[in-house]
Structure formats: C-alpha cells, structure tokens
C-alpha cells in the first residue's frame, strides 16, 4: 500500500514473486513458548527445526518476497527481499519509497550498506545465543537463565548502588519499549542517546533554539536551485538514499548549483559546481562573511527578518567587520569566491538550502559555527519555503502503552492501556546532583555528556550500564570508557556482534538483525516535500540461531523482573499495529499492494504564517539555560567568530597534523564493520584488496606522507598527546596538507572480528563542545611509519 489517493500500479518489477500470506515470507513462529525456553543453547538456526511445518518435499523451492525498512543507518530505506528456503538471497529497493527513491514514479534502490543486510542475517560472526558471566568468564546460557541472571543482578544492583546510578545507553532500537523499561520500571533517570552527544549536538541544538528544530540538516532538495553541502557528503553518507537522488534531481531538473564546503574531497565535492576546500574548523568565519556580503549588498529578506525574526541587530553587529577579505585569511578561500557564493545563495533564495550535520558539529568550537551557518537561513528567509529549509512534519503515531487492548490474567473483560508507573520520578541525574560536574557549562543544557561518563564511574555516580546496538568505544574518550566498562558493577549488552562492550559484559542478549524483526519508520524528511508517511515491514525471516528480536528481549527481562503485566503484546508487530492505529493502518495493510509504505497527510509550506510569535532567532539570549552556559563558556548569545583552539586541540609542535574521523559509503556508524562483504568493498575502493588487512585506512596528503617516508599500503602509527593507534596509510591528494582522516568504527573495541585497524577515538581524551558536551573529533596528532620515529 502506498497512497490511497493516487493510482499506482504497485507491480513488483523484477519478477513474479509470491507475497507471503501475513506479509512475512516465512511465517513467524508463535511466541508463546518464549518464556519457558529451557532448551540448551544451540547454533542450529531455529527455522530449520520447526516441528509444525508441513513437509512438502515435492514442492520446488520458491522465491518469496518480503519487505524491510533498512536499519543499518536507521533511516528506513525500503527493501524488497527475496527469500529462498528461509535464507535471504537477494535484495532491491521499493519503487516510490519516501526514503529509498526520488519520489513518485521513481525506482527504489538499496545502497551497499542496505544490501549487506542480507549478509548480516546469516553472518557466522554474529552473537548466536545468550551469555552470562560466571567465575569471570562468559558462558553460553539459555534465555531463561540469562533473563533470570540479569534480573537478579539488576535487583542486587538497586540494593547496592541505587537504580538511579544505572545508565540506559540504548541506541537505535527497533522497538519503542526500551526506554520505558529503564526509566518507568527500573527507575533510572540516566539516559544517553547518540544524536546530541556524539553525532551532531550543535547542529541539533542550535537549530532547536533558533526555531527550526533539526531541520537545518535536510533542505527541500527537490525544489532547490542552490544547495550548499556544508561539511556534508550526502552523495555517499546519506540519511536515506533520497538525499543523493534529490540532489542529483535538483541538478538535472532545476539546473541547481551545488556547492560543497569541505576540507576533504568527496563524491559530493566531485559533483559540485564549486568545491571550497576550507581550512578545518573555520566554517563559522565563512558563514559570518557570507552574511556580511548578503547584508551589505541588500540581498537579505527584509520583510521576513523584520516580521519573523529576533536578534537581527546583534547579528548585523556581529558580521559588520567580517568581510570576505577577513574570512579569506581564516578559511583559505578567496574573498571573491566567498562573495560569489554568498550572492549566488541569496539570489536563489528562498529556493536555496543548506545541509549541515556532522562535519560542522564535531569540533570544539562548533557551537558558533553551527549557529552562524543556521543563521544564514533566517537571513535569506528560506524558512519553510520551497527549495529552502523545510520544516518537515512526521506522521503521528499512538503510544502503544495508552492504546493497547488486552485481557489481564485472571480477568474476563479486556481493558485499554497499561498503567505504567514512573519509578524514576524524584530521582536526580548525577550531573545535577553532584558538585563534581559544576565546572561544565553543558550541565545547563544537557543531562549527561559522553566524555563525562568515565568520571561519573570513577566517582561512583554511574555504576552500571545497558548498551543496545551501540558501541560507546567508537565515540569519544575510548581508553577511559574501556576502563569504565571494566569498573562498572553491571554491564548488560544487547547486540548482534561482539565488540569491546559485549565481550566485557556480564549479560549478553543476542539481538536478531533488522531483517529478522518487525520494524516501523515514520520519519520526517523524505523524497516527498509535502506529505507525511509511514513505512513498515514484518520480519523477512525468523531470528537466526538462538537470537530474538529486541522487543522479546525486553519483555522477557521484564517478565523475569516481575513486570510482565506491563508488556501485554505478543511481539513487536502488535506494538506497531497499536502505533499505526493513530493513522488507521496495520502492518499488513502497509505491506499490501506491492510496496511497504503509505503517504499520509499533505502539509503546506510557510507553516509559520499561522502562528503569531517570531519564527526565527538569530540571538539566543531568550533561552536562559543557554545564556548561562554561554556566559560560563565565555561566548555571547549572538552569532560570533570563535577560532579553532578556543576549545579543544590546536595542531602544532609535536603534534602538527589535524586528525578527524569520517564515514565511507560502505559503513554506517560502528554496526557493520564486521561484514566481510563490506570490508572487501572498502578495500577495493582503495585498491588495497590484495593486502592481508581489513581495517580502516589513514588518508594522508602526499606531502605529509613524503615528509614522513610513508607510502600507500604502509602501516603507520597515529599518535596524540594522550593515545595512539595503528592502521594502513592511503596517500591521496583528496585531503588538505596537514589534515588526515580515517573511517571510524574499526580497531580495538570495534565489531571488526579481528579488531583490525585503528580505533579513531584512541587518540581522543576529553575534547568537547562546552555547550552540548558533543564529542570533539578533531585531534592534534603526528603520524609515523609503524615502529618509526615521529617527525
């Protein structure tokens, strides 16, 4: 089902495939026996020993069709999966899918990461059964043993330390119940997520405070005539393939100008009309100079600024002397080029958009860079106008805890809703409760910071952790985190792969991978600029080996804790159906008609016209917690220039190179570096597939390499003041002299089975943005051939 108001053929284009009865290609076994599973752990895939399956030896194996919502970067591109004999054998996209196509009438595809999901289903490197720690060693356990052991340990932990010192670090789970379990039931107020703390805190938070939410990330590509990829590489590191497709469409159909601002060459830079190879961490200077030009030349949207914004005078004052010539010195970009880009952007506005995300948010002076860049949108008045900064809307979903209908045990009448307690009520987070963190301005804004967790463990303020499909060792002060994980009294890990956390956990729950689970996506931005949407899929195949979908893991743990009554759903599919009740849909309906998405309500542009107050804030003095944090950090509330080194590292002396970690199109975050097919692609991409090495590569400028006697294929050490790592060099003019990068998610502590390569965070200590605590990933280092002397 895709669109009830449009006539769509919805035909499967590749070949005639059977659409499974209940949408899933393989019937999912009933879950009734899940809580009484005392069978010994086995490595045999459970679907091969299904006793109730009728035996049909005369029937030839038939390809069956199932759907998926890609979860590898959790941006939900539609997947159409071919299943044969319970195995995922082929995968392609869903035509017209909001995240995986360019929109109506266009073809859906699946990128290399998404395609690797069919490999992940059957990857022998996966965690195949539960484990518990006994006499210091992890041993295989049954599910009942693991649940019961975890429940006992959690109860003991509460008695010993208090549940409020247990940190919920669940990441991109496929079920909405995880945070409810830890907060409402176990009663911990401590929670750390990924987006703000290690991904792009300043982008999210400046956008939120300036009035546009985190929509400063994804402009309205399809309608844009001028797109700035500011520290972004959306042709390779996209949040859904619609991004790459949207940019290419805008170039082709709107003759849009594409400008990339990036210290390093990317595919997006290659396809751009202009690539500005900016000096790292000087984006804030460029943004101020662009504003200077736009104001000087009278190219800004005067009526929008006058009627809809706050703080323009402070902004004007801040940019008054920030001429292109001034910025040229800071950024290394010609003043005339700065003028040209500023004028081009302003003249194309409002059909001009900026995409900013991690590249301008992962250094210690990135708060002001993010604010200065986001301010340009308000200046040219592109807010929620076609081709500009779109205020994306999401489809509403119901809270399953409120709408579920079930018959409690011992009752005869069904009731609606689960009366969930809030056992975290009245409990304080460590950052608010203890004086040890009073020197950090971020405490005014955030409840925790990634780099402060090891201190909190040292201080006894955090004593345990639940990690779920995430690896904190790839983001921030890895060495300190490693010690913290060892020091914590209780570590529970739910994951598909072994990594530095799961290997050191007390309990390990083996999570089914995405195609073995029921999933739902309702996100905002997509190929449809004016429609909300939902996409869903039932599991394509059964959970492999002795793994379980995350809902069943949490529900099983809850039952062992005596909280089974709060989880009346048999499986995540029932939860998704409850969520979808808000839009009168079911998962089966979503998966009927030749696709697995539905376009919902239309929404207008310029939605701010219907509200009375201001739309956009250049100056953030109206937010007292920010004003307090800014004062303590020594910054103003208006746009402002802060040079590199104001906070964080500044290369020089013994550590002359600037190191940064990036992503490749073959990997997303740290979750799929275990996959051999993906490792292979990455090696081939660098023409290093013949080397006996499947770690990450250090991209080094030819002059920096020559100075140090390094050639492509050499093993090198990267050394900072506080740590080091070893990896293979790739010498290329794609980077600036003095700027060296690698793809993160490899090396010690990673899911790469041999832990090959460098953990990019092993050179990191505690560098961060003072306002959000966002991990700063630009580190001063030097590089030398392995075993050799530093220069």
């Amino acid at each position, binding site marked *: 089902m895709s669109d009830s108001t449009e006539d769509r053929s919805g035909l499967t*284009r*590749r*070949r005639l495939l059977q659409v499974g009865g209940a949408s899933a290609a393989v019937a999912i076994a009933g879950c009734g026996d899940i809580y009484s599973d005392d069978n010994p752990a086995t490595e045999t895939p459970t679907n091969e020993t299904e006793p109730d399956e009728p035996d049909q030896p005369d029937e030839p194996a038939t390809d069956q069709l199932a759907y998926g919502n890609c979860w590898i970067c959790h941006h939900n591109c539609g997947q159409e999966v071919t299943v044969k004999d319970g195995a995922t*054998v*082929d*995968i*392609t*996209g869903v035509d017209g899918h909001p995240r995986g196509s360019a929109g109506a009438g266009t*073809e859906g*595809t*699946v*990128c*290399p990461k998404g*395609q*690797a999901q*069919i*490999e992940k289903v*059957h*990857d022998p490197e996966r965690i195949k059964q539960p484990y518990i720690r006994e006499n210091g060693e992890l041993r295989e356990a049954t599910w009942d043993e693991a649940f019961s052991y975890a429940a006992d340990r959690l109860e003991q932990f509460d008695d010993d330390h208090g549940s409020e010192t247990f940190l919920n670090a669940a990441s991109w789970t496929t079920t909405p119940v995880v945070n409810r379990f830890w907060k409402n039931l176990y009663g911990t107020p401590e929670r750390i997520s990924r987006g703000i703390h290690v991904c792009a805190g300043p982008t999210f938070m400046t956008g939120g405070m300036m009035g546009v939410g985190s929509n400063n990330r994804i402009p309205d590509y399809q309608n844009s005539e001028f797109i700035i990829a500011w520290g972004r590489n959306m*042709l*390779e590191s996209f949040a859904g*393939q619609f991004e*790459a*497709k949207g940019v*290419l469409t805008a*170039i082709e159909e709107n003759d849009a100008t594409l400008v990339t601002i990036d210290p390093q*060459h990317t*595919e997006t830079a*290659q*396809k*751009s*009309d202009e*690539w500005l*190879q900016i000096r790292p961490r000087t984006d804030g200077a460029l943004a101020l100079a662009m504003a200077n030009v736009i104001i000087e030349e009278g190219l800004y949207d005067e009526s929008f600024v006058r009627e809809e914004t706050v703080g323009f005078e402070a902004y004007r004052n801040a940019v008054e002397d920030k001429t292109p010539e001034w910025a040229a010195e800071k950024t290394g970009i010609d003043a005339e080029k700065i003028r040209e880009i500023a004028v081009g952007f302003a003249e194309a506005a409002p059909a001009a958009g900026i995409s900013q995300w991690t590249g301008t948010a992962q250094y210690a002076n990135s708060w002001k860079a993010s604010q200065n860049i986001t301010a340009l949108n308000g200046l040219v008045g592109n807010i929620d106008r076609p081709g500009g900064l779109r205020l994306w809307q999401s489809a509403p979903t119901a809270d399953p805890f409120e709408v579920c209908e079930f018959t409690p045990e011992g009752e005869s009448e069904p009731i609606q809703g689960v009366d969930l307690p809030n056992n975290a009520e009245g409990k304080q987070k460590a950052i608010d409760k203890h004086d040890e963190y009073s020197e950090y301005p971020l405490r005014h804004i955030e409840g925790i910071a990634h780099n402060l967790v090891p201190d909190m463990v040292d201080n006894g303020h955090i004593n345990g952790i639940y990690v779920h499909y995430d690896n904190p060792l790839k983001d921030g002060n890895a060495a300190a985190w490693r010690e913290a994980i060892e020091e914590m009294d209780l570590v529970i890990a739910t994951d598909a792969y072994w990594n530095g956390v799961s290997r050191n956990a007390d309990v390990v729950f083996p999570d089914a991978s995405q195609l073995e689970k029921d999933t739902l996506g309702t996100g905002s931005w997509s190929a449809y600029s004016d429609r909300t949407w939902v996409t869903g899929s039932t599991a394509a195949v059964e959970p492999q080996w002795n793994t379980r979908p995350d809902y069943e893991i949490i529900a099983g743990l809850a039952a062992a804790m005596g909280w089974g009554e709060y989880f009346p759903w048999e499986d995540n599919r029932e939860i998704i159906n409850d969520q979808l009740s808000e839009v009168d849909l079911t998962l089966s309906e979503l998966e009927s008609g030749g696709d697995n998405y539905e376009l919902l309500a239309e929404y207008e542009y310029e939605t701010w016209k219907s509200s009375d107050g201001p739309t956009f804030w250049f100056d953030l003095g109206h937010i007292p917690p920010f004003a307090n944090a800014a004062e303590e950090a020594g910054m103003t509330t208006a746009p402002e220039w802060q040079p590199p080194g104001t906070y964080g590292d500044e290369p020089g002396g013994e550590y002359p190179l600037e190191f940064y970690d990036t992503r490749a*199109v*073959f990997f997303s975050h740290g979750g799929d570096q275990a996959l*051999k*097919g993906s*490792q*292979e*692609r990455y090696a*081939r*991409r660098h*023409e290093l*597939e013949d080397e*006996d090495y*499947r770690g990450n590569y250090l991209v080094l*400028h*030819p002059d920096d390499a020559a100075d140090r006697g390094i050639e492509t294929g050499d093993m090198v050490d990267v050394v900072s003041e506080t740590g080091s790592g070893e990896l293979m060099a790739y010498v*290329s*003019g*794609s980077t600036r002299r003095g700027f060296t990068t690698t793809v993160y998610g490899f090396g010690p502590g990673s899911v790469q089975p041999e832990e090959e390569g460098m953990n990019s965070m092993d050179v990191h200590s505690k560098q961060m943005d003072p306002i959000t605590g966002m991990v700063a990933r630009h580190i001063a280092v030097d590089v030398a051939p392995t075993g050799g002397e530093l220069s």
Partner: protein
Amino acid sequence: MSENWVFYYDFNRCIGCHSCAVSCKNYHNRDPGVSQREREMADWRNVNHYESDEGDAFEEIPISTSCMHCHDAPCVDVCPVDIIEIREEDGIVTHDRPDCISCKQCLDACPYDAPTFSEAEDNKMSKCNLCLGQGTGSAHGQDKRETPEDGGVKPSCVDNCVGEAIKAGPEEEMLELASDEAVERFENGAHNQRVIVEPMRTGSEDVESLVDRVGEGN
C-alpha cells in the same frame, strides 16, 4: 540503430558507491557472504576510482564497468575453442562455459577486463550475462532477452544503482534516453559504439578516455 542490448552510463549520476557491484554479486549468488580474498572470485561488475592532481584541482572519478557485450567483441575473435558468441537475437555475449580451456586470451583481449577466472569456479571463464540467466554459466542457450516491460528482469546492477547512472536495454531505447551530445558521440564512434556514455557536467578529466582506460590496468 539496433535491437542489440547495450549499457548506458551517466558519470554525472554515478556516486561511486559500488551498489551495482554488490547487487550483481548478490543476484548471481556469487557468495555475497564470503570475501573476495577467500573465494578468489572476481566481480563481474567493477567500480574503479581514478584520482588526479591535488588541492582544489583534485578529482576522483568513479567508473563502473562490466562486460559491455560489444557488437565487435574482441574476445570472440581470440577464443581458440570458439565458445564465445554474440547472440543474434539480442547482442548479448555468452559462452558455452563447460568447454572453456582457461587460456585467458579473452581477458587479454577485453577492453574492460571483464572476463573472470577463479579456482572456486574450476578456473573457467565467467562474466556478466546482462542477467539473461542467474548465476555462473547460466546464460548460454537462453531465449531472447526480454525488456522489463515485456517481463524480463532488470539487470541487477541497474536495479540497485542509487544514482540511476547505469541503464541497459536495446540500443535504440538507450539512445532515446541519452542526451543529444551522448548520442552524437556514440554515432561518431565513441568507444567503438560498445557503450553509450554521457559527457561530464563537472570535472576536467575526460570520462571518455577513463572508460577506455579501465582495461589498461589503470
């Protein structure tokens, strides 16, 4: 104009992601879960990346190639056992694989380095068959290739090309969707009319020469 199948490649839409190569490997069941190093099974479709210069002038250009099913396929001429054919009905170049003697002369002759040989496959040649069949050695003797509109499968590389840079079909259909400039180049004999290539929108490297360099060991 001919009904022979050809590939169409638009560099401007290729994002260098290798989705085409991964998709090919999955569709033809060439052990997607096993690494190339272990199985010694080369890809039927490859993406090569050509880097040049440095600083602001740096360029990196991805070029995706496979067997182009050349109308003048050099491999046909050099095969000593005469097992490679250009099919009359659709122009797809197939071979009678069991009779391959693994001399690799086809690989030497191929402008695109398309034929592959591996221990895991008895060292006999295998290559792209435009998804006429599914799997190694499956295409020989198959009926005429149908277009997706007529019920044929879409070539797997085309099906998962994120940028829609690769297309394939009867030559006349491909020329219809190509730009005037690409058609003109093709008609003037670019690449010996083996593949239709769009001119580059940005970038100073000459995509024409890059496509032809694929088989020259970079």
